[in-house]
């Protein structure tokens, strides 16, 4: 089931990214970087699982999970912010040209 979804998502990704204009390749990279940090979801759930499941390695497991939460949080906020900054530069010009 997951494999089906995976293959279909690859196709969707392929056709969507082909449409991206070359001028916006830099924001494309930063936004994909930001959204790949969605793994923060898994990091959080492992911290919980370690506690609920009374794992023998609660400490190790929660530290690893928390470390991952920290790293991905930097990435999510940083990634979206830098994308926003870049895009506002591209979009800012549009309005200027209209004024001219």
């Amino acid at each position, binding site marked *: 089931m997951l494999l089906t979804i*995976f293959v279909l998502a690859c196709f969707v990704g392929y056709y969507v990214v082909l449409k991206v204009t070359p001028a916006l390749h830099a924001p494309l990279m930063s936004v994909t970087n930001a959204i790949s940090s*969605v793994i923060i979801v898994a990091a959080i759930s492992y911290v919980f699982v370690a506690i609920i499941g009374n794992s023998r390695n609660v400490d190790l497991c929660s530290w690893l999970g928390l470390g991952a939460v920290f790293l991905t949080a930097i990435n999510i906020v940083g990634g979206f912010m830098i994308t926003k900054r870049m895009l506002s530069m591209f979009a800012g010009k549009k309005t200027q040209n209209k004024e001219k």
Partner: protein
Amino acid sequence: MILYYVSTYVSLIASVLFILALRGLSSAKTSVNGNRFGMAGIALALLGTQIPVYFANLDINLSSALTTILIVAVLGGVIGYIIAKKINMTSLPQLLAGFHSLVGLAAVFISLASFFCIYGTQSTNYDSIRALEMVLGATIGAITFTGSVVAFGKLQGIISGKPWRFKGQRQINILLGCCLIALIIAFVIKQTPELLIQTTILSLVIGYLLIMPIGGADMPVVISMLNSYSGWATVGIGFSANNTLLVIVGALVGTSGAILSHIMCKGMNRTLVKVIFGSFSSQNESSNTHDEQSHRNVKLCSPEDAGFILQNANSVIIVPGYGMAVAQAQHVIKELADELKSRDVSVKYAIHPVAGRMPGHMNVLLAEANIPYEDVFELDDINHEFGQTDIAIVIGANDITNPAAKDDPASPIYGMPVLDVEKAKTVLFIKRSLGSGYAGIENQLFYRENTMMILGDAKKVCDNLIKELKDR
């Protein structure tokens, strides 16, 4: 049960939002909204997965864990915010390499956590498929991590941008690759923590060895490749956590990076294998022999001469390259273009796919300087126009303008698509020195009849050109 459905639908909506975020990038107009879709997607994903926990069993242990997680996440978020606000647009390639390394390291942490969570409890063994997914997440994550750190160091100038090679490199890489496969298989069968950690360490080493031999000019490929890896690492984690959303996002990111790598490779007429194992290695000797005979016939030109030529031009195409980024000359270029435009000269910009150090690098810098979108053209759209152009100004670019790629089958870059700048009536080549580019290849353009070289820092030269023009 209801909660399960809620979280399924939430991740479905989040996936759609992520697809819309990428779709938005098809034009500058829709892209800002696209970015908002992306943020909404992450927010939904965070809420959606946590809903079951909120309602299911919110005992004291969990709520204190939740507080810790929140504190850590906010701390990370603030750091990310500061970095993204403060960073100079010129350092964008380094920043992205750094961000990729974080995704890689996080993927390693999560894979290890997923193993140690269960390890030692009643259900000691995973089925082999889950074990495979887990170890793959750790492997790809580790390679992404060290690879990105090396790429970061090279872009930042901490590590030399020159390819690092030694005898038998290829053999060692192949040997280590085989070891890695053997370790992965061993882990899937035995599932001991030692094997998992050994696999991770070996992957870290391989990531380092994989990127060290790659030179600065190939960085656009490397960055997009690492972008792709971070996606595949996400997929690995998605499979092992049995999370649809992560698999979808990982697939989107992975294919996106793969397409970018492909475009970059095409821009350099090289295959991915050649970039990794290197084909520029042998050109050092050949370029040295060139040096002896070649300091002939270079026409150096002063800013005054250049000002005179520019004054009489009707059309100008500016070709920016990495040198423009280093000198941060984009704002001065804009001033120069404005000065020319005020004299009714048409000014356009030609951007080669691999100009700079990452995909779209030049476009971002030109956008930062408020250069209108409509004046900026891609290789295929502008190449035919050089023939009808009075002046092509090459600023800090080199290999992407080298006519040897078209007519010298012996050249290492033969076959690479290049900008036909030599077809312009005059080429003004602004460059720090007569040295060869990152690929270490002589640019034949220097010795052409219609090429005028202006040596110096791109920013200072442009400043002088503006002064010269204004004086006239």
